[in-house]
């Protein structure tokens, strides 16, 4: 059984237990709270739970496939945080009134549309408290905190007016060279 399957079972188990006592909407909120900050948990179960309440969406660009409000969107292979696409921003822009961190770490993700690897910059948006929606944690190529250029545990709200973290973006910098 894959990790995702196991975590889905956890989610299902929780779903059954809580659904007996609360509404679906209440459960989704609680699940978000339960998994919030579990930077260790792949958050696809949350994405599934969320997508059950609202229609999915797409970038509208066949070369950039997927739903930027879900954790399995291709650019998010190393992201850790609340997806700005769910927070008033987008996959590459911050929500109104926040400030994008000028520095961060970069990862490399494979675009399923063309099979090529792209360098992704995971800039955080700062200056308002946690968005609290669509938490997503994937750790491909993530390395420990003592290698900051490859770490997503660091709050990258650095060089901004406030280091208070709101959400995370995934900005394409260009094709990765082998």
């Amino acid at each position: 059984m894959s990790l995702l399957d196991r975590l889905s079972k956890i989610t299902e188990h929780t779903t059954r237990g809580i659904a007996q006592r609360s509404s679906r909407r209440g459960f989704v909120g609680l699940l978000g709270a339960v998994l919030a900050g579990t930077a260790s948990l792949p958050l696809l179960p949350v994405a599934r739970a969320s997508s059950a309440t609202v229609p999915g969406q797409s970038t509208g660009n066949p070369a950039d496939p997927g739903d930027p409000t879900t954790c399995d969107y291709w650019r998010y292979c190393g992201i850790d945080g609340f997806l700005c696409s769910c927070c008033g921003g987008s996959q590459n822009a911050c929500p109104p009134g926040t400030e994008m961190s000028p520095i961060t770490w970069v990862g490399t993700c494979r675009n399923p549309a063309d099979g090529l690897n792209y360098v992704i910059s995971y800039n955080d948006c700062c200056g308002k408290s946690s968005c609290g929606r669509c938490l997503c944690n994937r750790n491909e190529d993530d390395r420990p905190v003592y290698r900051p250029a490859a770490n997503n545990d660091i709050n990258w709200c650095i060089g901004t007016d406030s280091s208070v973290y709101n959400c995370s973006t995934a900005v394409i910098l260009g094709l990765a060279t082998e």
Partner: protein
Amino acid sequence: MNNLVRSIALTVMFTCATAAAEFEPEAIGGVLSLPAPYPDHWAMFHDVSFMHMSEGEILVIDPLADTLGDQYKGMMTASLIAAYQRSRSRNEHYVVESFYSRGSRGGDRTDVVTIYDAATLSVSAEIEIPAKRVSGMPKTTTTNLLANERFLAIYNFTPGQSVTIVDLQERKLVGEYSTAGCGLVFASGLASANGESSFTSICSNGTLLTTHLDDTGNFVSAEKSEIVFDANQDPIFETPAVTPGMLYFPTFSGKMLPIDVSQAQIEVKESWWLTEQDQRNWRPGGMNLVTTDSSGVGYVLMHSNGGEGTHKDGGEQVWVYDLQAGKRIGQITLTNWGLSLGTSGSGDGRLMFVTNAQMAVDVYRIPGGEFVKTLHTGAATPFMIYGAN
């Protein structure tokens, strides 16, 4: 009507008289305090309050109490994913935290070491430090106590890397020393004489940087080791298992790297596998994924089908180790999927805490692993748990 009023008045008087007979007047302004020291099975649960980071809390919990009221002993605030240490000799808690003059909107940032009296949970002192402390997911090595708990070392990341030294005895800031290229901080030179001390940081190229301080906490010298691990292919986790004079760092692939920190010159020992040859798909993972109990037994959170990118996944089992012998001595199958570990207690009263995937805390007796209970303390995100022992 007059009769009715008279009747009501008599009823009220009778009621008051009855109440006065049954209750002694109670004092206004009562505030409880805690025993000193705490019973050694108690624990501090750090709720980083991930959804509202300026509202973090550190709860003092009696995990074996039966009732909710008896379990929750008190609380300290801990702003913006604070770091935490405690001194048994001074019976104090240290919360390294940050504040903004306009809250989450920003303004002037102030970083402080807030010192709590452990018995009263009131603030006994506050020491302002450079507003540079690292911000991010909590790790046990973002701060550390040095020189028999005299100094507190705090890792800074701006992204310039340095360590701030605070004199807890004199209640003052001592200095800030560069650790360029190296991060985090753990105590080394534990057997140093004359009050001298040292701390070691982990460098991005797989070396270790050790900084030596004099008896007042001032910089003396620093030196780097050879490359002692592969920082890209098989990095060590940020958090070690700690026994007196020794640190044991798990690696992503499932090895354990022992480092002797008892002397001023650290000594890296030969690594050993956590897993057998046919178990290499079992990997360590989680937040605080490794810990020791008061007897020095090691505990590692493990998951099956591990590989690239699974190092924060937590696990379904905790593997138990004789760290000195480099040998597994037990295997605990968890009741719920685990994300972070802590321990408390001593002797036959040792306990392990596992923050589970539902963000409740499961309690086990160790080293055997008998499940005791699940604690629901009200903490939304109790990522780190520290024993009182």
